[in-house]
């Protein structure tokens, strides 16, 4: 019995020793380098395209900073920023970004890219929204939904897309808090791709971003098509905001600024604009920095300014934390 017990104990000592040895060595190895960590909480719609994996590899090769992307969604990303759990947030909900700046949690906001939200619906389009403007389209969906002919699926997950959906309903004159109680209005409580899958099953209408829809329609047999597209109300603007180092002293502000500089550099902007061009018919994102700089940026530049600017600027001077070189 003694021999047996010795073996039993021995196994655990060896096992425990091996694992803790590996752990100690690996933690020593990482401590030896002078690289710092930059924690970025990001919206899933951009993360799930794979763009950020490309950016991470490219950035880490050029800078002595390791990026840790936490894919969570706009709502949670903002909470991470407020709690000081991330150094930088990458989000797409301008209204909430304003609050984040005004409440002093965020500084140095930069708009980096954009694409469009689209209204998706089944090809037979029971509410007849194709080609209408967005407010009109939403009204038709409500009418047809109340007649029991159409279904609307909302993300219902407090994401950037959900935030935009709620403001679109508001602008069209509807109260979302009462819409959710109507039988034709369903909340998926899921990511964009799951919501599209659900909409495809039910032949329902929904709001999507172009990049996820392109990914969804590639290689899948789908009953859905784009019904409303390319209007001001539907522009989808992605921006980065650093967490305010004066409010939360432990954040890696220096790293955050370096990452923002990297993002708005010409090379990275080209990388963003060309991403996915080899796989998808249309490019997934358009770069925003050059467009906003030039005085004659065209209609899309004006739309970004209308939808995503705060007091006539992407980041008013009092929220720039002295980083004025980023706003030339």
């Amino acid at each position, binding site marked *: 019995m003694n021999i047996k017990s010795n073996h039993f104990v021995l196994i655990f000592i060896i096992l425990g020793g091996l694992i803790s040895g590996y752990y100690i060595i690996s933690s020593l190895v990482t401590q030896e380098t002078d690289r710092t960590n930059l924690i970025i909480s990001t919206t899933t719609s951009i993360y799930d395209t*794979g763009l950020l994996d490309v950016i991470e590899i490219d950035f880490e090769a050029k800078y002595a900073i390791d990026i840790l992307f*936490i894919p969570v969604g706009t709502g949670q990303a903002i909470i991470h920023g407020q*709690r*000081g759990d991330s150094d930088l947030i990458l989000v797409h909900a301008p209204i909430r970004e304003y609050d984040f700046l005004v409440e002093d949690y965020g500084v140095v906001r930069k708009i980096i890219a954009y694409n469009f939200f689209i209204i998706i619906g089944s090809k037979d389009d029971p509410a007849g929204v194709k080609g209408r403007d967005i407010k009109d389209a939403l009204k038709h969906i409500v009418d047809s939904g109340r007649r029991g002919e159409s279904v609307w699926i909302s993300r219902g997950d407090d994401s950037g897309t959900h935030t935009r959906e709620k403001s679109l309903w508001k602008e069209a004159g509807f109260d979302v808090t009462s819409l959710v109680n109507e039988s034709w209005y369903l909340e998926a409580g899921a990511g964009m791709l799951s919501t599209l899958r659900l909409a495809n099953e039910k032949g329902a209408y929904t709001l999507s971003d172009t990049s996820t829809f392109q990914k969804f329609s590639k290689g899948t047999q789908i009953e859905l098509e784009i019904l409303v597209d390319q209007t001001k109300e539907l522009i989808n603007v992605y921006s980065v905001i650093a967490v305010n180092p004066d409010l939360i002293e432990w954040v890696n502000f220096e790293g955050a600024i370096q990452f923002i500089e990297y993002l708005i550099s010409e090379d990275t902007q080209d990388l963003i604009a060309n991403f996915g061009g080899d796989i998808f018919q249309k490019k997934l994102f358009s770069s925003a920095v050059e467009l906003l700089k030039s005085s004659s940026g065209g209609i899309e530049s004006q739309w970004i300014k209308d939808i995503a600017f705060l007091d006539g600027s992407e980041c008013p001077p009092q929220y720039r934390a002295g980083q004025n070189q980023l706003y030339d």
Partner: protein
Amino acid sequence: MNMITEIVSSFFEALNLVFSGDSFVIDIALRSIYISGFATILALGFGIPIAMIISFREFFGKNIIKWIFNISLGFPTVTLGLMLFLLFSRSGPLGVFGILYTPTGIIIGQSILVTPIMVSFSVSALESVNPEIRNLAKTLGASDFQASIMALIEGAKGVSLAIVGSFNRAVSELGIALMIGGNIRGFTRVLTTTIALETRRGEITQSIAIAIVLLFTIAGVNIVMSLIKRLWLR
């Protein structure tokens, strides 16, 4: 039919992923084993003494404690994940240690998660050990502690089931790994968070393939445990 072909093709993709030496899958699988294995060993460290006290001592409230461990067997992982997130968050009470978004954070979380399994399974194993063994050991001159160790060795087979059960629960949970680890590529991304991510990304085949890798991982660890049991615990 469609689903069956999808699963079959995923199965081959899984084999392909593992045997083509695709380092990202191997890497994730090893990280899963290391994190959950470490968590299991931690839980073993504080679970077994608790189980021994509950099994071999008589004290007031013993049944209530047993009952608490039994109901915590079903504790939802997301709830535990959320509680630990608030605790480990930089503005939370344990924020200064910087364990949020690290493998260490997941290890601590999973070890808390599986401790009830370790305790409950071990208690039922130890309680079924013939009490005469402890008495016999004591009459042969063993101290109370030595006698308890004797009974623990006698119940080792049942305890090894507790270890396997704990590891299985740890390696297949999602909530803690997602909320405490943050699913960071190459750092805290484990098998379950990869499955969640690939499903959300629409890479269904990939995600089934990773799920098959997870099942193989669990099977592999279980086979190793039963070999140990067969060789040394009779």
